[in-house]
C-alpha cells in the first residue's frame, strides 16, 4: 500500500516513525498504527495521534508494555519531558518491570552533588586551562594530553593519543578547538 492511500494522519505517522527509527520492529509499528486507526474510527473528538503529539496514557490503567511504547514514541518525537514523566510514574507503579525501571533510571532528572577538590586538583585544572588558552592556535585541531599544565603528547585522534600515552590517569585529553 502506498502512503498516499492512507488517511493523512496515519500516513504522516508511518512516515515519521519509519524515518526516525522509533520502532524496534515492524510489529511494534503496526500495533501503534492500529491504535491510530481506532482513534480515527472513534471520530473527530478522538485525540490526534501523530509524532508531534505522543499518546498521553493514564499510567494507572496502562500496561507496562503500553507505557514502554509510549516512552519510546515520546523520545522519538522529542517529548523528553513526557518520556521522563511516563518512565518515572511507570517505574513507581510497576517496580518489578525491568524495562520501565531501566527507562526511569536513564531518564531520571539530573542530580548534582558538591565534591571537595584537593588543592593539587584545583591547581592542575587551572594550569591546564592556561596551557589550552595560550596554545590554542598552535595546536588547533590536534588532540592533546596535558598533565598539570604541561603537554605530555599530541596526536591526530583520541585513539592515537590514548595508544601513545598508555595510562591516562591524571591526564586531560581533549581536542583543541
Amino acid at each position, binding site marked *: 500500500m502506498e502512503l498516499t492511500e492512507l488517511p493523512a494522519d496515519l500516513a504522516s505517522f508511518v512516515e515519521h516513525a519509519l524515518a526516525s527509527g522509533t520502532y*524496534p520492529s515492524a510489529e511494534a509499528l503496526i500495533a501503534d498504527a492500529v491504535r491510530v486507526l481506532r482513534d480515527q474510527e472513534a471520530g473527530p473528538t478522538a485525540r490526534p495521534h501523530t509524532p508531534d503529539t505522543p499518546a498521553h496514557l493514564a499510567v494507572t490503567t496502562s500496561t507496562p508494555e503500553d507505557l514502554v511504547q509510549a516512552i519510546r514514541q515520546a523520545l522519538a518525537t522529542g517529548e523528553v519531558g513526557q518520556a521522563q514523566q511516563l518512565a518515572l510514574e511507570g517505574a513507581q507503579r510497576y517496580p518489578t518491570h525491568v524495562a520501565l525501571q531501566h527507562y526511569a533510571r536513564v*531518564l531520571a532528572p*539530573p542530580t*548534582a552533588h558538591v565534591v571537595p577538590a584537593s588543592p593539587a586538583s584545583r591547581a592542575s585544572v587551572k594550569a591546564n586551562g592556561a596551557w589550552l588558552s595560550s596554545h590554542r592556535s598552535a595546536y588547533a585541531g590536534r588532540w592533546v594530553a596535558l598533565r598539570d599544565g604541561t603537554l605530555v603528547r599530541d596526536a591526530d585522534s583520541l585513539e592515537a593519543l590514548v595508544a601513545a600515552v598508555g595510562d591516562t590517569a591524571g591526564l586531560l*585529553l581533549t581536542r583543541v578547538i
Partner: protein
Amino acid sequence: MPLFFADGRPFVTGSQSQVFYAPTRAEPKARLVLRGTIEGLTTQAMVDTGGLYLFCMPSVARALHLEAAQALGAQTILFRDERVRGTLHRLTLTVLAEEGADLQLDVTAFVPDAGYENVPDLPSILGLHSCLERVRFAFDPATDTFYFGPASLAG
C-alpha cells in the same frame, strides 16, 4: 566564592577560568568550554543552553567502552540539522573547580552510533535539558570565569 545571595548564602560552590573560546576561522562560534570528567575520563565539554542531554562525542564514547546493555537503544536526535541515531546512557560527569569544589552530575547522555563518523570531532556538549538543568551557573566575561553549583546547596 565571591557570588552570594542577599542573605549571605553562596550562589555557587566552584569556578573555573579561561573557558571562553572566541570564534576562529575553523570554529566560527564563540563557546564556553569547561574542563571536567566523563565517567572518569578527564576532558573538555562545551556549554550549549539550547542543547539536550550530555552529547557525548563518538571518540570519547569509544574511549569509555560504554556497555550497550546499559543503554536505551535506537534514539534519534537532531544535531546541527542532521538526524543522528544513537543510544541513551546514564553517565557521571564532574565539572572540575580551580576554586572551590567540584560538581558531580548524574545525567542522561546521548551517544551517537558508531556509523555517524561525520559528527564533528568537537568536545562533548553539555545541554541544558537533562544535563545542566539542576546546576546554577554564571559567566563573568570580565574575568573569563564560569561559576557553578548545585541548584540546591543542600543536595
